[in-house]
């Protein structure tokens, strides 16, 4: 059992990219600004010609919480888990969960990178895990 995103015409490209293990954010084809979550118009120049930019998946932990009490039966078996807001190198922030590290070792400002986990048939979510030394060097 998993909790999976319902999709709309606006949000489906994000999740379709995730299924291909790509992280994308919406991009204005006119002024080239990027943002997340998706919107029907560019909030900067109001252009309707919008596309998707693939981002590297590098970011840092903006804030986080270790959840120790489930509020939904689907997460009862996941306790404890680490929710976070990650700030991407390209600017936008995402809600995600941190994997691949004991919860107690998660900290603010920690460099992280996107990893992709299939949670249900045809549904893949981007999660984040601590970046390796090599990831960080590659970021320059």
């Amino acid at each position, binding site marked *: *059992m*998993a*909790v*999976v*995103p*319902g*999709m*709309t015409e*606006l*949000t489906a490209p994000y999740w379709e990219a995730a299924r291909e293990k790509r992280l994308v954010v919406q991009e204005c084809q006119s002024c080239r600004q990027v943002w*997340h*979550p998706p919107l029907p118009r560019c*909030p900067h120049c109001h252009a309707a010609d919008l596309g998707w930019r693939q981002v590297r998946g590098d970011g840092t932990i*903006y*804030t*986080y*919480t*270790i*959840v*120790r*009490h*489930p*509020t*939904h*039966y*689907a*997460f009862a078996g*996941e306790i404890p*888990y680490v*929710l*976070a*807001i990650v700030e991407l190198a390209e600017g*936008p*922030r*995402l*809600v*995600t*969960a941190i994997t691949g590290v004991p919860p107690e070792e998660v900290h*603010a*400002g920690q460099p992280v990178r996107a990893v992709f986990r299939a*949670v*249900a048939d045809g*549904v893949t*979510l981007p*999660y984040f895990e601590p970046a390796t030394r090599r990831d960080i060097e590659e970021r320059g």
Partner: protein
Amino acid sequence: MIRRPVFRKEVAIVGIGQTAYGKALPGTAWDLAIEAILAALADAGLEPRDVDGMCRFAPPFEPVSEPQLVRALGIPELRFFAESPLGGEALGAVLAHAAAAVKAGLARTVVVYRALSQSKGGRFGRADGRGPADAGAPRSPDAGPGADVVVPEEDNRSFAWPYGLMSPGQLFALWARRYAIVHGLTDEDLTGALGSIAITQRRYANNNPNAMMRDRKMDWDDYRGARMISEPLRLFDLCLENDGACAYVVTGAEVARTLRDDPVYVLSATQTLSPYREPMGIYVSGELLELFPPAAAGRLFAEAGVDRGDIDVAEFYDATSYMPLRSLESYGFVPDGHAWRYVTEAGTGPGSPLPVNTHGGHLSEAYLHGMNGILEAVRQLRGTAVNQVPDADVALVGAPAGSATILAR
């Protein structure tokens, strides 16, 4: 730009009413709303037939509709009714709408109400609607045992729920952690600040016959020993979940003075909305901590014609203990980053520079989406509160994202 005052003492609250508050009260939310409204009208010396306006929190938050109440109370005609969205952020807005309607002549006597039946309608802290005793099948018809739960996209929920970010408590934990990050607090600093808020409010509640936590003492050992829900928030940092209803009656100042000697005047009432600054907004482009936009706070005080030092008592919306802490800063009572130390040193209890949540708040009186804070402010300004602030002349009631009011006697 200082705008001209909109409501300053031209509109007043003339009646307040409530039900008992409890985990599971008999009756429906409809029953509770009726009881609270009749109590508020009786307090004002008015009858249901006098009511010609209603303001409420928009569905799905407020389950009781205007037609239900007009029918059940035999109100001949409403000529003004309005609904405010965004849950707790309707707090100042419903009063702003009621006061504006009265001032504009759209209505003469406006009832504002909020009824809540979490025992029957689902608990806010449970994303799946399950209560502790409900071990049965999930509510959503599309989610049988073992089936995937599909989160419909609505206000970006489909980007949060799949990760398990589903409840206000978890979101406020992210905010509280961010506060500690930005201001360099240790876990102990943050615990000391949040615990000061929670324990102070519990002590107020211990004197309050209406408070659900009236008989439940809480000391530092109790607070620290409570289980972590979503770090850094512990059990007693989170609000109660309960049934109950509140209502109040708004009318013009001249009428108000014919009804009672102690009307409580509306000095200002605000609502505000900017991108991602709605209550559960996560994706704000600037600093996440900035909830109440400074411009809105400035408007609240400028329109009221008072300053921070004039406020005798504040009732801050407290879904969690973090919110009154941050509200001290966002409303301008304490500089940014100083509230955590301020609440541990000056505090918010009796005799402090600014007593906060003198009824016990959502943490220890009951959760009524901020409406019980309005009722408490009215009692403070009438001089009838159980934890009376001496000579309280001006009170502020506010939700964290800019929906607020300043009231005066």
